[in-house]
Every structure is written in structure tokens, then in C-alpha cells.
């Protein structure tokens, strides 16, 4: 085993990661606030009014980042869980558990903002569109993962069971997406469809990017925070935790 | 045959035992004693490989049981608090199914004979549901009669049995030991196995 690997394993132990995470959190939180303010500024005060959607389109600045994140987080969560299952590293399983609630929140916000956008644009809070449906199912997958872990008392068992589920789910997500797309496009009887602005103004794109970065930073900060709590809960009988909590 | 070194067991936030050491030779019988909640059942499940050991090592014929896998499973017979009987089926059907799972095909005649030896004459064809507590237990124990596993792990096997059945069971275990097998069992009473001396391990 070479030195770098040992170094890596050192940080892969909850004991050494706990303080590291504690030092990282403020930086990411600060970045989240800075990018968030910048993004909101661009979104509300720089980006012009949309020709077809008037001001309602400004929901995009929150809708798109949350939608993207909800999908990304699931992938990352499944990767960490799979790593934990394969290598039996405690920290990666904890990372997966820490990501899930935030991912679920992002999925919920994507649905919520989407529904609030849909009412003025399509005249309905909800349509059974491919994208919407698969986002709803993604939320179910998150909830399943969280519920399964919560239902198992023994944390080690919870980690492994959750990992199996997350991996099965990650295979299923693309299948769902394509099945739903195909289902929907085959019988396009719906009176409404997703109308996208033909070419997004550069400022809009900037605003969206800034907000996305802000959301990323937020997610990292809050996930690290939750990870610290999980580490404490799980390792509460070890000496180092008793020492760390003075 | 079975060697246990520095074994520890944790349930919830409670450490039930640690640093447990014993070894068992062919023909040996270990009686695990201890008060309620001492961790006897937990120990037995760990010995079977059903629960992972928190610390320490369990070796069978000198090799860790984790490595042995199927080979170890073939060598172990576990009899727990649960009877592993289907209430809707008859003792006869239950026994034959259990034998199949144990890797053995049992024809009806043989199974019939084994149940009679277990004292279920005339009850072979009733659904287990209507049997008395002790009769259920006997039906479950009939499995021991057709096992070829050298290591028997029995969790409170004498519970709910009447006096005759207790001495019958002790005889069965004795024959198993005499044939070169070994056994780990728990009980809150004294255990006397004919033709064999029983080591006692007391968990506290």
C-alpha cells in the first residue's frame, strides 16, 4: 500500500473526517450565500421580462437548479452507498445517509416550483408529463431509501439494505425515464406541453448558473453538517467521540 | 473441532460478553448457561454464522468459518427458539421439507418412522396448528434424527418437553456425541447427557 492510499484511508475514517468537515462547512456556507445573492440579483434585477411568460418565468432560477440537483444527488448517494457495501467503509455509508434527505428536499422543491409554474403556464397544477412523472418517482425512491434506513434499528444492517436499494434504484432511474418518455410521446393527447423559450437570453443562463452553484454549495454545507451529526450518533460509544465532545 | 477465541457480542449499546474463549473436540458437549438476557441466544447465533461477530474469531477444523461458507453450513445444525414448522402442514410434511433444506431426500416411510421415534405416533397427519406446545417441539426435534451435521447448536431444546421427551432427547444427543459429533446447547436446568461429560460455560 503506498503512502497516498494510507493518507486517503486516514481521511476515510470518521474520526479524522469529523473535524475536517467541521472546518469545511463555514466556507461552503459562505460561498452558498455569496452565489445565492449574486444569482438572485441577476435573476430579479438583471434578467429581462420574458416575452411570452411575463414575470412567471423567474421561477426558472429556482426550479432548474433544484431539478438538476435532485437527480445528481441520487447518483452520488448511490455511488457512496455502493462503495460502502463493497469496501465496508463506514464513512461512505454515512455519506449516503446524509445525502438522502437533502436529495428528497430538492426533489420536493422541484415538484413544488414546477407545480407553481405549471398553473399559470399550462392552466393545471399537474400534468402527467414524462419529466414530471419521473421526478415524482425519484421522490418516491428517495423516500423509500430514507424509510428503509429509518426502519432498521441496527445501523450496519440499515447501511447495507439501503445500499442494495439505492443501487437497484439507480439502474431503474434511466429505465423509468425512457419508459415514461416513450409512454407519453406515443399518445400525445394532452392539450398542454412543455413550452420552452426558444433561445434563452444570456443573462437568464447566467442567473441559472449562479443559482445552481449556490445550491451546490448549500448542499455540500448542509450534507457535511448532517454527516457530522450522523458520525456522532453512530460512534457515540467510541473514545474519540467522548473526547471530541467536551 | 470448534475453536472460539476472544469472541465479543454487542447488542444495541450493550456489550453482552467479550473475550470469550473455548474449544470443543469431537464428542464434546458445551452447556452455555447464564441468566435471562445474558447473551446465550446471541452467542449461538454467532456460532452458526447468522450474526457477524463483533470481535474475535470462530474456527471450524482450524479454519475461520467466514472462509468456509457452504462447507461450514453443511456441518452445522441449528435449532432455535422458533420451531421452523409450518402450522398448516402436518409433521410429516414439515419433516420432509426440513430434510430437503438440509440437503437430504427423505422418503415417506423413513419420515414416518422418525416421527414415531419422536413420540408423535397418531399425530403425523394432523396440521401442526392443533398440536400441543410440546408436540410441536417434538415435531421440530425430529429433524435431529435425520441430520448428518457433526455440529449441533441447540437453543433451549428441552423447553416444553415432558420428562419422557427430555430423556429421549438427551439420549439422541448422547448418541450424536458418541458418534464423534459435538454439540453446544443452552438450558436453564441441569443438563445430563448419557455417556458424556458436559462442559459448562457460564455467561454473566
Amino acid at each position, binding site marked *: 500500500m503506498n503512502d497516498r492510499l494510507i493518507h486517503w484511508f486516514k481521511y476515510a475514517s470518521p474520526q479524522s473526517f469529523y473535524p475536517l468537515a467541521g472546518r469545511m462547512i463555514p466556507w461552503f456556507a459562505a460561498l452558498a450565500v455569496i452565489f445565492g445573492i449574486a444569482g438572485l440579483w441577476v435573476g430579479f434585477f438583471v434578467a429581462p421580462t420574458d416575452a411570452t411568460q411575463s414575470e412567471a418565468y423567474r421561477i426558472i432560477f429556482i426550479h432548474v437548479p433544484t431539478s438538476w440537483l435532485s437527480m445528481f444527488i441520487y447518483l452520488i448517494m448511490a455511488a457512496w452507498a455502493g462503495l460502502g457495501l463493497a469496501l465496508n467503509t463506514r464513512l461512505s455509508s454515512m455519506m449516503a445517509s446524509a445525502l438522502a434527505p437533502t436529495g428528497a428536499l430538492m426533489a420536493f422543491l422541484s415538484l413544488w416550483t414546477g407545480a407553481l409554474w405549471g398553473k399559470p403556464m399550462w392552466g393545471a397544477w399537474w400534468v402527467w408529463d414524462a419529466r414530471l412523472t419521473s421526478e415524482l418517482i425519484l421522490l418516491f425512491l428517495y423516500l423509500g431509501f430514507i424509510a428503509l434506513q429509518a426502519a432498521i434499528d441496527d445501523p450496519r*444492517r440499515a447501511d447495507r439494505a439501503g445500499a442494495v436499494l439505492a443501487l437497484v434504484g439507480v439502474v431503474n432511474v434511466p429505465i423509468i425515464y425512457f419508459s415514461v418518455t416513450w409512454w407519453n410521446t406515443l399518445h400525445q393527447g394532452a392539450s398542454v406541453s412543455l413550452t420552452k423559450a426558444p433561445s434563452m437570453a444570456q443573462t437568464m443562463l447566467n442567473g441559472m448558473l449562479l443559482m445552481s452553484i449556490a445550491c451546490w454549495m448549500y448542499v455540500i454545507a448542509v450534507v457535511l453538517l448532517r454527516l457530522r451529526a450522523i458520525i456522532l450518533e453512530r460512534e457515540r460509544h467510541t473514545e474519540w467521540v467522548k473526547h471530541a465532545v467536551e | 473441532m470448534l475453536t472460539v477465541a476472544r469472541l465479543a457480542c454487542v447488542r444495541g449499546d450493550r456489550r453482552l460478553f467479550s473475550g470469550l474463549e473455548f474449544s470443543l473436540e469431537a464428542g464434546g458437549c458445551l452447556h452455555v448457561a447464564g441468566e435471562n438476557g445474558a447473551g446465550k441466544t446471541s452467542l449461538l447465533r454467532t456460532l452458526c454464522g447468522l450474526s457477524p461477530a463483533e470481535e474475535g474469531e470462530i474456527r471450524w477444523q482450524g479454519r475461520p468459518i467466514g472462509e468456509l461458507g457452504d462447507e461450514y*453450513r453443511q456441518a452445522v445444525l441449528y435449532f432455535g427458539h422458533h420451531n421452523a414448522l409450518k402450522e398448516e402442514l402436518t409433521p410429516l410434511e414439515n419433516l420432509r421439507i426440513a430434510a430437503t433444506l438440509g440437503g437430504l431426500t427423505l422418503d415417506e416411510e423413513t419420515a414416518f418412522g422418525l416421527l414415531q421415534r419422536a413420540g408423535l405416533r397418531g399425530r403425523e397427519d394432523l396440521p401442526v396448528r392443533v398440536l400441543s406446545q410440546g408436540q410441536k417441539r417434538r415435531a421440530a426435534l425430529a429433524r435431529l434424527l435425520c441430520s448428518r451435521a457433526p455440529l449441533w447448536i441447540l437453543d433451549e431444546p428441552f423447553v416444553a418437553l415432558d420428562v419422557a421427551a427430555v430423556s429421549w432427547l438427551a439420549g439422541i444427543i448422547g448418541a450424536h456425541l458418541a458418534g464423534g*459429533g459435538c454439540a453446544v446447547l443452552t438450558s436453564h436446568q441441569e443438563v445430563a447427557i448419557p455417556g458424556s461429560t458436559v462442559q459448562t460455560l457460564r455467561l454473566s
Partner: protein
Amino acid sequence: MSANTANAPASLPSREPGALAILAGVVRRDLLLAMRRKSEVLTSLFFFVIVVSLFPLGIGPELGLLRVIAPGVLWVAALLAAMLSLARMFAPDHADGTLEQMLLSPAPLGVLVAGKIFAHWLVSGLPLVLIAPLLGVQYDLSAEALLILMLSLLIGTPLLSLIGAIGAALTLGVRGGGVLLSLLTLPLYIPALIFGAGAVEAEMSGLGAHGHLSLLVALLVLCGFFAPWVTTAALRIALE
């Protein structure tokens, strides 16, 4: 090993069964149990029939409308029936200690699991396939649509059993197993629902069901390979 002789006297006529014999043994056992309980077979079948027959009562008797919703209703009902019978795939064996014995059995666990899944399909999937045309007639489906319906169910129900086995194994002995099981399996079932109902709809609208059916078959092959394996892993985790 010398110990063997003690407990298997020469007079005991017995032989070690191969993997296939064990598979057959497990299937036979589960079928026997199902026959003994009767309800096993009937529950999912009856549930299927109920759900399908309740709709006309709730929605109204217009055949035009009923025909449009028929593929969806029949497939949703099949899916729910399969989902409900899942809880009984491993839970009774878990409760009475048989599952422990299976894990400790020298036979490969994968084979046992495959046997149980197959038996589950025979007991709770196949009856649905057979009764479906009868129910389809109530919704005024054409003969071709009925054929495609049966075909889609014939491919789809084993898929439901396979996917469901994973969920059933994961939620074994877990608090609130019932909901969790539906929460976990439902999202995984959706592709089967969409392609299955889609096949019948495509047939009815004259587009041809071929595409949907081949996708279903592809899913079935995929799950046939992986599901027993994943289920085995989940069972080991559940009983540790």
C-alpha cells in the same frame, strides 16, 4: 467425517439432492403450502377480480369509456395484486424460523430463492394471466386486445415477482414492513406497468404491440438474471 455415521444410520435411505432437485423441492413445498392455505392462490386472484369489477361501479357503465381505461385498469389491478402477495413471499418463513434454516442450508441460497420466486409466480401471477381475458370481456375488449393483454401479463407478472422479491427481502423483519414494501417496489414496477398497459393500448389503437412487448421481454431477461442474486444478498443482510 466420522460424525456422519452416528446420525445417519446405514438403514436411513437418503441421498444428497442436486441443485435442480432442491429447486423442485422448494417449488413443490411452496405450492403445497399454497394449496393447504388455499387463500394464498385466491387472495391475489380475488383481489384482481375485485379491483377490476369495482371500477364500473365507481365510474359508470358507459362501454366507450370503459374500453379506453381497460388496459390501464387491468394492469394496475394486476400490479396491486402482485404487490399485496409479496409480503407473503418471505415473511412467514422468517417468522417461524424456516428462513434461518434456509440460510444455514448447504444448498446454494440463490437456488432456494429462485425456487421461491418461481413458486410465487405460479401461485399469484399465473392465475391472473388466466383470468384476465374474462375480465377484459367485461370491458368490451376485442379478441386481439385480449390476446395481447394475456401475453403482456404472461411476460409482465414474472417480472413483478422478480422485482418484488428484492423489496420483500429488503423489508423483512423491518418495522412497518407493509408500507415500506409498497414504497420500495412501486417505483420499480412502473416500467412494467407502462409497457404492459402500453402494449394493449397500442394494439387497440392499431399501432401494434410488438415494440412494447419486446421491451417487456428485455426487462424480464434483465431481471431474471439479477433479481435472484440481489434478493439473496438482501436476505443475508436481513437475517444477519
